[in-house]
């Protein structure tokens, strides 16, 4: 952790708060990037506990909107990750699940929906499945050593085959683990009659809407209620509008908040 690197944000008059999805969606002063960056600095100064400093640093989805807006481009996401690594314990994750079935492709299924069969039908050959609610160890990403160990276990299970992922978090983790992967979004035809919702680094398409839904790590794990508030804010903005999100994690989060959302898994299953 580098508390001195946080200090520019501590004295900043919250100039990026209007682009932060967590601050805006939750309405919480504590969720402004300024307050979030102040947490680790305050704990280093002995003004709050390490636990509180770490929890502050976890009020973030890692979307990077703050840095994109900042005129002096503070690397907020990276600094917060370092702070969390120093201040918060390593999350306990079960070992990566075993791969089920045969096939050169492995469908990484993030929720209860089973879609490896539908993908096999689409492809015309068998597709294996990996039932993984933890996005290939994404919750460990702040802790390089634990994340690397987890990645090695995933690599061993995958064994050179190609993963098909339905979440941006799993795609990022696969990249970090050095595992070949495709996104399910790239294999299905996005619907033209729905608003394209982009977030978590997914590209914004013309006429689409760029919003972070709040389902990203570490917010979802450490502050689930705040993540729900952010999701509710985006769902409220969408209203009855039908939308499509390329990330199944975002879509699920927003569906729970009442939004009419489809994701690539829905499309695949509906076409199977």
């Amino acid at each position, binding site marked *: 952790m580098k508390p001195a690197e946080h200090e*520019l944000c501590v*004295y*900043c008059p*919250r*100039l990026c*708060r*209007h682009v932060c999805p967590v601050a805006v969606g939750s309405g*919480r002063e*504590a969720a402004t990037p300024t307050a979030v960056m102040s947490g680790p600095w305050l704990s280093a100064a002995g003004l709050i506990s390490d636990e*509180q400093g770490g929890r502050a640093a976890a009020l973030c989805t890692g979307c990077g909107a703050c840095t994109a807006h900042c005129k002096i481009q503070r690397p907020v996401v990276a600094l917060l990750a370092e702070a969390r690594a120093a201040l918060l314990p390593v999350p306990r994750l079960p070992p990566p699940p075993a791969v089920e079935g045969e096939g050169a492709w492995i469908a990484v299924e993030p929720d209860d929906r089973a879609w490896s069969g539908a993908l096999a039908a689409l492809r015309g050959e068998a597709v294996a499945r990996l039932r993984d609610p933890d996005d290939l160890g994404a919750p460990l990403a702040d802790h390089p050593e634990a994340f690397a160990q987890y990645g090695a276990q995933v690599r061993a299970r995958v064994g050179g085959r190609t993963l098909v992922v339905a979440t941006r978090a799993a795609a990022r983790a696969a990249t970090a683990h050095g595992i070949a992967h495709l996104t399910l979004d790239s294999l299905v035809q996005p619907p033209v009659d729905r608003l394209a919702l982009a977030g978590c680094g997914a590209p914004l398409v013309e006429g689409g809407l760029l919003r972070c839904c709040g389902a990203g790590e570490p917010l979802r794990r450490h502050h689930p209620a705040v993540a729900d508030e952010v999701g509710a804010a985006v769902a409220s903005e969408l209203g009855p509008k039908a939308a499509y999100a390329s990330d199944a994690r975002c879509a699920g989060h927003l569906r729970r908040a009442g939004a009419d959302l489809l994701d690539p898994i829905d499309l695949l299953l509906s076409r199977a």
Partner: protein
Amino acid sequence: MNTPALTAAGIAWSADPLDLDAARRDLWPRDSLRLRAGERPPAPALVAWPCSRADVALLLRWAEEEGRPVVPYGAGSGVCGGAQGVEGALVIDLKRMRRLLQVDAAAGTAHVEAGMLGQHLEDALAPLGWKTAHSPSSIHCSTVGGYVAARSAGQFSSRFGVFEDMLLAAHAETPTGPMDTGLWTPQGSEDLQAVLLGSEGGLGVITDVLVKLAPLPHRWWLRGFAFPSLEAAWSAMRQLMQSGLWPSALRLYDPVDTRVGGPANAARKAARGPSEPGVWDRLRTAVLGIPGLRRRLLEIPLSLPGFVNRMANRLGDEVLLIIGFEGEDATVEALVEAALPLLAAGRDLGAGPGEHWFAHRHDVSYKLAPLFIAGAWADTMEVATTWSRLPALYAGVRAALGEGALVMAHLSHAYPEGCSIYFSFVGSGDTAAYDAVWRKGLAAARAAGGTVTHHHGVGQLKGAAAAGEAGAALPFWRGLQRQLDPQLRLNPGRPFPADAAVRSEVPPISSAGPVWSIDAESQLAWVSGAAAVTAIAAELAAQGWALRQRPDRPIREFLLALRPGALLRPELAALGMILRLPGGERLRLGHAPRSAAGPDLRWLTLRRAELEAVELPVIPLGAPVFSGLDGGELGAERLRPLARGGGRAWFVGPAAERLATLAGDPRPGSVLDLPCLDPRGSAS
């Protein structure tokens, strides 16, 4: 705490230390200084996020039952400590009330919830072709409710006015019930908009407002001019404003700010384009990259502020003026043509400085944090006065602040009657040093006849000084507070400290006849409140002056007959008032051109006092005037379609002659052609 009651009512709340800690402070630099020393303001007991007026009302009832103070909180962008933490308080955080409820395109208005951030409001309005024209440098980090509570001003105020000029109505919840002001004032009730503005959470919790909109401009014309001296430049500003041209952007940088802040320098560098850093650039980057060395380098000038300020005086006298007009192509061209002769004393620097300023107009706040990290502190002080007193105010405050800090200034909110001065200063040391600099600055502002705050509000920083401006009107405020908030739970001690002394200072003005005095440079006259308007006009005419716009009935009657929502109309511009209270005590209220030292107590007091004298705008009797040709492409209403407050646009002097010619008017009129004002708000 009976938090289950809140949960049962569906109101989100938190006692998580993360939320409580974040609500301890706003952006008062003194709190940053304390934070650096490991000190923090008190923490509240609970933060709650209402989503409706009803939620706010329920929270106020809850606080009453719990016996807790209440701090309303927007985005905490205030720089005076107005939203600072109060031990054990309930913080009502308005940021979930962030909807644009309605845009009425026919009326050009928007109904907005108070917790909406300024930038989000502009983002929502722009696709509809509208803007609020309120652009404070804090626009990314401040809320609409905060603009009302602390009487905000934006960067285009010279043209569109400050936020209260755009505010048509407001709703607030108080411990004793709802309060509607302006156009929403219930029939037969007193309009309290003037006191809700600037109340800083001390009267009610502002929930939603109705604001006037302006169309997005087709075109901007931006320019920089170099003037040989500050005096020459503010003379040009004064003429621009008194002519009625009212540029959207009008910013003058003093000699130090011209060189240090430097939109002109920055624009020149930008025009040169990217280049390889030279030896000097590389050396400077290397040196400043060493934190300890950077700190030591800053300590040297900060330890000798008086000497450095004197050296800065020798940098030269040349100053930069940024000017900008917006609107339809034809109107912009006409306004520019009329304005250029008034800028003849300056050297045209081209579009670069103006466009550079426009593109970077919200960036200045990024410069603050590095100064705090380097061991210094930085703050700003925005004062205002009439044009005639401006030199003394500038010199007095600059000298006072300069005893303990490095100082520069710019002037960015101009009026026909005067201007504000925005001092930026950097000092070193602890809170004692900081407080000493502020004490001297505030005393100097008052000694020079200026207001202590033009648009930053009061908070805790200026409470005593603001109470000094309110003087003997304070009991009226306190009476109203007791009526709406009997237990005084709302933001205790703000904007006026509970123990503030009630003292009134009445300036020594000759009080003989209908016209007491005339300030020719500021085009203001103190006139008797008891005299007939005709007698005032005749006396003014005998001295070569006329009222800029004449009330259609006796002045006090006119002021008291104003429709709700029209109390603060600047085209009326009843600025200062000398009032006699029922007990015989006299007081003076109102500082020309404008003060944000808490709520505007003039109207509250006027209803309960005798009007001895009032300060009104005047214009030279022989000056040509253009205010006609309604509907013509270059008619006055097209040239300035949103006169502040909705009154009729007028142009005076050579600019009026030029505009009349461009509009095809055979001859400009005289002051006698200017319309009377009727209290319903339209010219007759």
